[in-house]
């Protein structure tokens, strides 16, 4: 299976461990990633906070590139990117006049024919049963709290993925691979996302609540499918401990890390030693 690939800035930047993990995992599953040529940033929170047209134009340029290159589907493993791309696609589908204007702005015809998907949807496409068949190692001893955060399931009309209040797609996948995901309350509560630098106290507070709830429900690790969730829960964990005199010692995996381990890929190849909190 070949699929268009939009890495986004985070995966080409400090979240390169996520990209290693996604690439290693999908290549073992026979999914060939074709990176979008000369993609640009989706604009993230800054664009939709400061300029509405820019918040559509930046993702639209990428959708136009994908169409030009004949990609039916584009994988964006970062939910911020995938949500912005999906939102732009919805807005453009509704309004033909705006679509022509945006096409002129981005110097490329954008029709909105390329579908956008997140990482979990690719695993679903491959098929959970097929993944189980190729798996060589049971994920015994892993009791993850699966954390969806905000933009994987919201807004539901735009992203159209899983149940927006009580998603379960990661749990189903990991259960099938031998892990014992826990039930907990903060699955879809936001971690503060891109506010890490500008509004640190918010991020520390939200992260502290999320980590505490995961531990209280018996989780011995967490699983995310978002580079910002990983930064806020893994990289900022020692700052959270400091601020709240807490003793969180929670390993935070990307979903592709655990699937990769089950497929027999080494932790090194998945970039796991690059995390800040590691299993001793």
């Amino acid at each position, binding site marked *: 299976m070949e699929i268009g690939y939009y890495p986004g800035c985070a995966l080409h930047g400090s979240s390169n461990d996520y990209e290693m993990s996604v690439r290693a995992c999908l290549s073992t599953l026979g999914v060939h990633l074709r990176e979008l040529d000369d993609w640009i940033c989706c604009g993230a929170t800054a664009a939709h*906070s400061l300029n509405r047209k820019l918040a559509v134009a930046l993702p639209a340029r990428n959708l136009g590139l994908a169409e030009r290159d004949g990609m039916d589907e584009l994988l964006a493993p970062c939910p911020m990117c995938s949500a912005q791309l999906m939102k732009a696609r919805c807005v453009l589908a509704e309004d033909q006049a705006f679509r022509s204007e945006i096409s002129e702005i981005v110097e490329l015809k954008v029709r909105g024919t390329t579908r956008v998907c997140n990482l979990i949807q690719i695993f679903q496409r491959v098929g959970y049963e097929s993944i189980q068949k190729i798996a060589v190692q049971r994920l015994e001893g892993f009791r993850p709290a699966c954390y969806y955060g905000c933009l994987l399931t919201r807004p539901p009309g735009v992203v159209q993925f899983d149940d927006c209040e009580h998603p379960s797609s990661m749990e189903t996948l990991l259960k099938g691979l031998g892990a014992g995901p826990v039930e907990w309350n903060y699955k879809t509560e936001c971690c503060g996302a891109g506010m890490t630098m500008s509004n640190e106290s918010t991020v520390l507070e939200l992260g502290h609540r999320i980590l505490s709830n995961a531990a209280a429900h018996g989780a011995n690790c967490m699983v995310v499918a978002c580079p910002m969730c990983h930064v806020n829960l893994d990289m900022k964990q020692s700052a959270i401990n400091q601020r709240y005199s807490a003793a969180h010692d929670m390993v935070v995996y990307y979903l592709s890390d655990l699937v990769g381990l089950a497929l027999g890929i080494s932790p090194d190849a998945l970039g796991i030693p*690059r995390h800040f909190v590691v299993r001793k």
Partner: protein
Amino acid sequence: MTHNLDLNSVEELAHTRVHDCYQCGKCSAGCPVVERMDILPNQLLRLLQLGRLEKAMAAGAIWECVSCMTCTTRCPKSVDCAGILDALRQLSIEHDVASPAQRRTILFQQTFLDNIRRNGRLAELDLVRKFKTQGFLDDLSVPQLFKDALLGPQMLRRGKLHLRSRRVKDRKLVGRIFARCMADNGRGNGHGGIQGELEA
């Protein structure tokens, strides 16, 4: 460019109807940062319904919002509350009435966008450097300047820092996209952006 400030400006930007809100309070009940807000999300909606746009634009709350879309998702009247906060942020900058207490958050968003305009993709180190420098010039806070300084070496050791980021080939194009979107402050349909550029 100045615009007449009224409810239409908000609704046009947010593509949603403010008067649909019947004040059930569900947006505020589910908001993860509501405790940090000086004016709650449902109260912001009420201010808009009462025509008090200036007060809503100056609220610190609109910059505390983490854009998690919970309010929009749960609204029983399908009001895009998060979209309204986006519109309020954009208008508050355009009309220079944004809460001074939120300067750092605003500075970050502006620095981020400027970084994209110049590089096409985020150059993380450049973002950190510019944000830290400008933030320090604004408030002369030494702790803020050195906060996270220890993260740098730790990230470098983990191979998470790129001294040279991969930039896009056609950076001029990105500049043109920005100029066109900024030309009419990201507003309206028709072809204002392109025309503005031709006239300039």
